[in-house]
């Protein structure tokens, strides 16, 4: 169903701010949860229960000097975080979060941009976002940044292959590349996490690697590379990189929910579809919690182990999964 263009603009503004808010409070959630798992309290000075901490962080970052290394290459150094942050935010536009509502005389879709090839768009934007990380590290002219960049490059490129292949099963089953269509298909059938359990697992693992989260946080392994590709960044430029990472994590969780966990649907509650965003958010929180839990528990993999795991285990599994799914679908028809 179509909607007037100005509704889309308003919605885009609302969603982008909601995503940014979620990002800000994900950092707080992460710090709080990690702290609780590590016998600490976490931030509790700014506001009640530390609730104003993200805002304090933001104010600090904005006011802080954005240090600029003399040796850095100007334009790429400045543009890199912008590219990363932009693509990260843009990718969320195609994630459906509700069934759509009729408000007064207008229809409002449950997605910012309903594109028929939204899945491909997400991967494309993700790939452009990687340039930000690579170029930023390279343009800093620092050895640690360069090492971090190299790692990021190798890791993201290899895991993106498995990531794309792992969703192929869902695409074949649903017969569509549109995320909205995929969610609709799950409304009255089993969520795809059941028939595509292998795909879901591969997706989650490569997703963790794709967002450089523990145990795959090699690009910024503090104990080895100080801060990886953003070693030479400070102030809000660093903040943009950080934002890109967290928003990527949120988008990826959103994608997992859309593809495998029934999107905005909730089991046994079809009558309350207007509450879609709420269910979506609950699922999002659950996945984010899993991300944070992993970080608190697992040691980091080594570079070569990460590579061999990606190419020798995940990729074959994802390929076989896609092939088997295709065969089953053809045979069933």
């Amino acid at each position, binding site marked *: 169903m179509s909607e007037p263009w100005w509704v889309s603009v308003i919605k885009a503004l609302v969603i982008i701010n909601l995503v940014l808010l979620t990002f800000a409070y994900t950092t707080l959630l992460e710090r709080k949860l990690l702290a609780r798992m590590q016998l600490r309290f976490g931030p509790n000075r700014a506001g009640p229960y530390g609730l104003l901490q993200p805002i304090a962080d933001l104010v600090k970052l904005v006011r802080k000097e954005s240090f600029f290394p003399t040796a850095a290459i100007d334009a790429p150094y400045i543009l890199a975080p912008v590219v990363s942050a932009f693509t990260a935010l843009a990718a969320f536009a195609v994630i459906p979060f509700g069934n759509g509502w009729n408000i007064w005389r207008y229809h409002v879709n449950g997605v910012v941009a309903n594109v028929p090839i939204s899945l491909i768009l997400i991967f494309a934007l993700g790939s452009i976002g990687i340039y930000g990380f690579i170029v930023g590290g390279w343009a800093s002219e620092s050895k640690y940044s360069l090492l971090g960049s*190299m790692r990021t490059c190798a890791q993201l490129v290899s895991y993106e292959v498995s990531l794309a292949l792992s969703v192929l099963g869902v695409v074949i089953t649903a017969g569509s590349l549109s995320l909205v269509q995929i969610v609709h298909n799950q409304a009255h059938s089993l969520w795809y996490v059941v028939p595509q359990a292998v795909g879901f697992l591969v997706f989650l693992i490569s997703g963790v690697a794709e967002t450089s989260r523990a145990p795959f946080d090699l690009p910024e392994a503090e104990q080895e590379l100080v801060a990886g590709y953003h070693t030479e960044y400070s102030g809000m430029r660093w903040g943009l990189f950080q934002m890109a990472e967290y928003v990527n994590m949120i988008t990826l969780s959103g994608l997992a929910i859309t593809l495998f966990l029934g999107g905005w649907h909730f089991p046994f509650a079809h009558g309350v579809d207007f509450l879609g965003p709420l269910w979506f958010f609950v699922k999002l929180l659950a996945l984010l919690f899993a991300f944070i839990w992993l970080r608190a528990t697992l*040691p980091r993999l080594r570079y070569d182990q990460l590579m061999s795991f990606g190419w020798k285990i995940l990729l074959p599994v994802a390929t076989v999964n896609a092939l088997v799914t295709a065969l089953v679908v053809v045979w069933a028809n």
Partner: protein
Amino acid sequence: MAVAAQSGRADPIYAGTRIPSPIPTQLDVDPAVRGTDDILTVNFGPNHPSTHGVLRLVVDLDGEIVVGIAAKVGYVHTGFEKNMEQKSWWKAITYAPRIDYLAYQANELVFVLAIEKLLGLEVPPKATWMRMLLAELNRIHSHLVWLGTAALELGAISMFWYTFREREMVLDLSELVAGYRMHTRYFQTGGLAEDIPAGFYPECRKFVEWMPKAIADYDGLLQKNEIWGERTRGLGLLNRADAIALGQTGPVLRASGVDWDLRRDDPYLFYDRVRFRVPVLPHGDTYDRYRVRIEEMRASVEIVEQCLDRLERMVGEPWIADDRKVVLPPREELHTSMESLIHHFKIVTEGYRVPEGEVYVAVESPRGELGCYVVSDGGTRPWRVKFRAPSFAALEATATTVQGAYIADLIAIVGSLDTVMGEVDR
């Protein structure tokens, strides 16, 4: 050892020796590629998140692989040994624990033992048992700090807080006994500085009961973790012959399959009167060094327990030798006895005299053989003090152990050698 049997691994250790002659302290880049664009030279430290203080490693990298390494030390050289020559004997004791700030009790012990050996002073049994107990608590403390930081370096961030929870308990016990959490200066020439406070035994019992459970928790988080195994097994290899040639001691040596522990093989204090296991593992890798330290913590808990059994029956016994030439007289006598007042004045101002001679005393510190060589010219100050620092020896193994390692391994391997930079530089 039961542990070695459990792991069931083939022996991955290299044959022959990896040490060229003369023994190098650094690993040099192959001249064929030196200076080419393929090699990236990076400074790890002196300010780096995981260099255990201020160690500077100049690392040559070929991609992610370490092809050359040189450890630069001396950033925290404080001149402890020289300073000790300027202080009277009993003041110099204060300096010893600050050398290795994690094994503070062991350093204090070795210097006090050296003085007592020169003096020929007999120490009451209660003091000896207490010294043993504190030395073992200190070993647990040191290994806990090592375990937490080593796990942190491999990305298992939560371990740090879990180990520091138990470390806190040890420090609380120190505080209960001596009033200080670290660098207690509780060991006095002739015994202990004060009597053991009444509340100490039950508190220590609680700790002894808690600690094995905590160690089981660590095992649950690390040993049963596949990634931890992958990151530590077969890395940082050091075989038996090389370990001995490089002068390794302590856990590093025992993880290379050499069954050598001063506590058992050259007993000091009352180590010949307690039962404890000395863990020895054959593979000489990072994983075995980790296992050895874990098992040592268990053994230390057993020793602490046995010390407690003895100490609890010794209430009321003297805690310091009765030698007025060396030991401060009891405070209350100062108001009634002229003799005591003179002794007190002499010891505090001039210090006691130690007979001419030289001694070498070695104890098993958490890092290995901690030796103290002291020369006295018969005066009130040491003429020369020299410590044999196990950390320094461990650091010499860096070049041999990191051959062909990845950067990530480099961090894990240097961590597994457990060097304390304060002790290396002194």
